[in-house]
């Protein structure tokens, strides 16, 4: 444990998630990666992809991939709304935008051709 450095820009492993066409336009889908559930969002309007944890921290429900996406504010901050109680979360920062003090984990996404990859930070 001694002299452990904090890794803020740690290594990222890119994991093949699915085909782009598997995720509905302007919608989401849930990807299984080992024991983790990751929600991927195909934000067609912005021509961007996002990924977050699938667990809604409000009541610990595995549903964010079934949430509705959209944007808020002047800068069109992309967000997802949980289907249960409509708590919304920024797809950029994972911050809860409905004023609660929990947030969700976000993952980088990249598209190579038809394939969607999610970046997993290695924790060692």
């Amino acid at each position: 444990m001694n002299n452990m450095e904090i890794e803020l820009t740690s290594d990222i492993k890119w994991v093949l998630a699915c085909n782009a066409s598997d995720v509905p336009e302007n919608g989401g889908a849930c990807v299984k990666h080992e024991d983790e559930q990751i929600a991927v969002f195909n934000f067609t309007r912005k021509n961007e992809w996002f990924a977050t944890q699938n667990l809604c921290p409000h009541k610990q429900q595995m549903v964010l991939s079934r949430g509705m996406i959209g944007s808020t504010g002047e800068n069109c901050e992309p967000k997802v709304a949980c289907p249960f109680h409509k708590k919304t979360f920024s797809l950029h920062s994972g911050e809860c935008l409905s004023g609660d003090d929990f947030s969700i984990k976000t993952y980088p996404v990249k598209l190579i051709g038809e394939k969607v990859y999610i970046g997993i930070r290695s924790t060692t």
Partner: protein
Amino acid sequence: MLNEKPTIIVIGNGMVGYKFCEKLVAKTNSFRLEVFGDEPRPAYDRVHLSEYFSGKTADDLLMNTLEWYAENEINLHLNDPVQEINRDNKTVHSLKGTVLKYDYLVLATGSSAFVPDIPGVEKEGVFVYRTIEDLELISAYSKNARNGAVMGGGLLGLEAAKALIDLGIKDTHVIEFAPRLMPRQIDQPGSAMLQMKLKELGLQIHLNKSTTEIAGNGKVDALNFADDSSLPIDMLVISAGIRPRDELAKLAGLEVGTRGGIVVNESMQTSDESIFAIGECALYNGMIYGLVAPGYEMAEVVVSKLNAGEKQFTGFDMSTKLKLIGVDVASFGDPFINEPDCRTIALEDTSKGVYKRINITKDGKTLLGGVLIGDAEDYNMLLQTVKNNMALPPNPEDLILGARGGEAGEGGAGVMSLPDDALICSCEAVTKGAICCKVRDEGIITADGIKKATKAGTGCGGCMPMVKDLVNGTLKEQGMYVKNVICEHFDYSRQELLDILKMNNVRTYDEALDHYGRGDGCEVCKPAVASILSGLWNDLIVKQQPIQDSNDRYLANIQKGGTYSVVPRIPGGEITPEKLIVIGQVAQKYNLYTKITGGQRIDLFGAHVNDLPNIWEELVDAGFESGHAYGKSLRTVKSCVGSTWCRFGLHDSVSFAIEVEDRYKGIRSPHKLKGGVSGCIRECAEAQAKDFGIIATEKGWNLYVCGNGGSKPQHAQLIAADVDKETCIKYLDRFLMFYIKTADPLTRTATWLNKMEGGLSYLKNVIINDSLGICEQLEEEIQGLIDTYHCEWNEVVKNPELRKRFSHFVNAPEEKDPSVAFDTMREQVKAREW
């Protein structure tokens, strides 16, 4: 260098030490800052430490990034505790051998968990709960533990117990020495109520228990108590209080308290005036403040002192509000003061698990303090009332009973009566004046905006509801006109948008947004537009799946745990034995909980999303259709048995109910629609509680509209009397289409009528006397919707592309969500409590 800046060394990079740096660099850059931290990572949010178990990473919890320290030229020595302070040379010496000279020293060493002197504390499987490393150890050990205990029933102990439950330890115990839980914050009846609620959640609580030994061979396997009882456990978390880390100060000869803590004055100076102590290590006026807000205030005082300011620390309010395992707990002001020194009003509702107590002065004029368990919604307002010495209402019990009748409290009139200097966010010291000013002068009109602009709500977050009320209250005071628009993406009311989309033949959401909206839409306008488009064109809703509200998207209602319910249509409540058997078979096959609904049909709960198409395939094969229980559309037309069997029945209410239900099924509307048909005025179908109700009379049928059950029940009103069946349906056609076209999103017919200028007589004029000349058009439009009816489930089960959307994992479509869990109750499944 000669004119080098004076150096401040901060020992401890915890929450308060960090806050000191943040506040200092925001004010001045005339000091050099060196920070030593014992822990391997920069300061993190200890208050939200437990969220580490609910998915947050250590990085998420950081107060700020390493880049931030670098940008602000703060030299951070992590993993390098200071071991000695030499006050004569004004130097500090660290473990790694660094020696640095200081002009000022700030001790922010915090505290450590207090571990009582009980035999066995050194055993394997015994933990404390203070740092990320502690949590990592607990988490790793818990994998092999079936039962666990927390020693200490205070605030932190209960939080640790929640963590154990979250880690999957079902059998979790709390051991408390005192006769009640949270002895520092709440009273005996409050503790009893909290205990009852926590028990319901599966936590076992032992009060008056003094532990004499932590037993086990090398690793803990039981606790032995003074009363000779014992409890077998696999792991133990000790949370018996905190001990200020004053060892370094003691070594340097600074004055410390007899029970620990570095003695400080109003300016947070220790007995050496160039050395300050702040946060949980500081002892002010004989007291250690174990919360962040007072620590932040102390940091502010030192920053002020170093900049020749006057700010002093004069004690701090220790009021707290928290959610413990889902139960609200709050204590404010003086919670314990008793009669005859004051008047105490208490309210106890064991069925709801709510206990509220307020202490007021004997003259009934001011509030002194109180305790809230189970429902702490009033906390912020009560706290402000204490802090600002505000006058109480004539009946002080209203403070905890809530206003009776009327709509008082809406729009936050209460908060607007606070003085401008009322402290709204005590973590960041933001006043009401500062918040209202941002709204008035800078036009920041969202709670998030205020959060960013003032930092209010960034600490514990407890003040956010009040911030929202203040924003709305200020807007109202300004006489700001709040236009009835759908949301930030569309500047139109639902009715306006419907007209626009119709005129321009708009068929998709994206078209609507591109031409008549802005941004990327949201969870408010997407379903609203989806409903408008259905009302206009009645296309298959699954074609535009992502804009449908979650239930519409999966053509089923989402339940606790993420499974869905299945509600086949049973028109008029009439069903053949054959169909009943099919429902039973399907429920058995897919292990669904089965219940007769309040709407005369059968609901099957607990279906995995991947099973939905298979379930519906079987139901569709047996002749069932979607019941649209998920949609804002027609639910049920309830019927009584009517003249076919009933000795009082005037006409055949069942046949009429089925006819009406079949006519309007599937049509989307601003909110859901329900109907009822009764065979006589005994009204067994409760038709007058529905959006439309039909009651048989000697001469024909009476038609009632705009009734509602729900939270604000309202009877339907008679709009046509003694009409024949055909006329009744004609009026209904017009009525429903008029509602579909003109109501705001999510407005039931009752509310729509209540808001309508001219009320019932206007509605009657439009529907019956055709005062707007639109009746023919309304009839045509609704006929169009009736003619394009389709059962959505029928379409989905036939279409492999659509079926594909019903999976949990896109990359493993056969697999079910492993986080779904059920319990058993009365021989059926039930969703696992969340």
